[in-house]
């Protein structure tokens, strides 16, 4: 078993931020603009889910312009476990800005007050006068006739604090902290030195899981990467040259090496991220290697301090004892 605590985002006083915009386009589409790169972690899905939740509109209505520097503003890198937190919150604020603008302009169209209006499925309507109803896109067209653009913009720019150079302490070094505990069952073959990870249990603090299937996917993938780090992956460099630059000599876990992972999502909702969400990308893999190494210790009573723990190392350690 191993438990880790992880500060996500760049932190340490770095001016980290994300900018997004949300606007009605075409006949019945909503366009989200963000330069956040989706490398498979699912930030696009998360962005759509968040905007969909704020605007009370089905995800099917949404489109994304992603990573186009001509039409999007900075969202920072897809690294440091930061996109759901930063871009998720920027998209949430952009969607809220759009929603606020919709309410503002529609209340003038309906000559009514905010509390007497509502929005659902792209329709804006008045509780007072049932004839007062229009779609978001009709409102956009009416405003365009008067030279007004209907759009929402959001910038999420949380403050972080430089750590004291002597103590390493500060108000808040990182924007938020995730926790991950992993339990693994391993079998060590004392004849061959082979370690098999038979099962993994993961409890991850996601703050709020915007996309629970995506969180599971990240945890399962992280477990595979952590397993590789613990047991197989070793780049051999000699005089600056990598001696094993291929997958038959640098071993990456296959479907037969990776166990079934049972994921438990813990939702603390204790950050300034969207709906309390935290980043979980990197924490998903960090606990795996120490959990495996601890399990090997539990099985054969040998502590390993250098990764990966290959069958050769296990054999050598067993022979020494």
């Amino acid at each position, binding site marked *: 078993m191993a438990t880790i605590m992880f500060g996500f985002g760049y932190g340490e006083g770095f001016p980290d931020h994300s900018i997004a915009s949300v606007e009605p386009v075409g006949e019945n589409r909503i366009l989200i603009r963000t330069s956040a790169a989706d490398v498979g972690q699912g930030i696009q899905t998360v962005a759509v889910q968040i905007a969909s939740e704020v605007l009370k509109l089905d995800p099917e209505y949404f489109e994304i312009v992603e990573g186009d520097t001509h039409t999007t503003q900075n969202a920072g890198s897809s690294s440091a476990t930061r996109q759901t937190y930063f871009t998720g919150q920027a998209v949430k604020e952009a969607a809220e800005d759009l929603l606020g603008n919709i309410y503002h302009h529609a209340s003038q169209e309906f000559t009514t007050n905010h509390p007497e209006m509502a929005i659902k499925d792209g329709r804006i309507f008045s509780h007072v006068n049932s004839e007062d109803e229009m779609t978001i896109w009709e409102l956009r067209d009416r405003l365009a006739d008067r030279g007004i653009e209907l759009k929402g913009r959001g910038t999420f720019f949380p403050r972080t604090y430089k750590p004291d150079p002597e103590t390493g302490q500060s108000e808040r070094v990182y924007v938020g902290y995730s926790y991950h505990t992993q339990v693994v069952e391993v079998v060590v073959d004392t004849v061959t030195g082979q370690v098999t990870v038979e099962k993994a249990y993961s409890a991850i603090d996601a703050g709020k899981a915007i996309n629970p299937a995506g969180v*599971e996917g990240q945890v*399962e993938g992280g477990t595979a990467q952590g397993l590789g780090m613990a047991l197989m992956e070793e780049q051999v460099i000699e005089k600056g040259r990598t001696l094993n630059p291929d997958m038959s000599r640098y071993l990456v876990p296959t*479907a037969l090496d990776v166990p079934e992972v049972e994921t438990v999502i813990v939702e603390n909702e204790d950050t300034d991220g969207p709906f309390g969400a935290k980043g979980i990308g990197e924490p998903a893999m960090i606990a795996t290697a120490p959990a495996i190494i601890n399990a090997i210790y539990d099985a054969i009573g040998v502590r390993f301090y250098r990764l990966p723990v290959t069958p050769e190392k296990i054999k050598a350690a067993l022979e020494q004892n």
Partner: protein
Amino acid sequence: MEITFTINNEKRSLEVSPHQRLLDIIRKDLGLTAAKEGCGKGECGACTVLFNGEPVASCLVLAPQADGAEILTVEGLISREGELHPLQQAFLDTGAVQCGFCIPGSIMTGYRLLQDNPEPKREEVRQALAGNICRCTGYQKIVDAVQLAASRMQSGGDSSWAQDL
């Protein structure tokens, strides 16, 4: 030299040079970009296609070897009406796709497995997929996807795909 082969039920003739690879003609000459070049050494499985019904690493097959062959890629799994194959749909529904790079190869391997073994156990799916390396999903949802497709195909309604191919 000119070679003639069938790809995704379509007969094609191409002028190829002896050193070209099957993967090159599929991606560059025919523009079918589902199969990916990962390692280029037959070790990762990203370029897997069915070659006369068997999964092969298309980066290891020379183009002239494809003369007279029948080839199936992910593009060929889509029905004539443009519907996704149940296996493709299952990959989407289970969230088995993250970065997606290995997925076309994994789908072709899964497709071949289900022909032989329409109700595979999880271990059997893992065994079949052992040559398709995935760096980001941890395989669990890929196994889920193959099993979901298997159960949907078993429960009927999808026999049209079998006839199409």
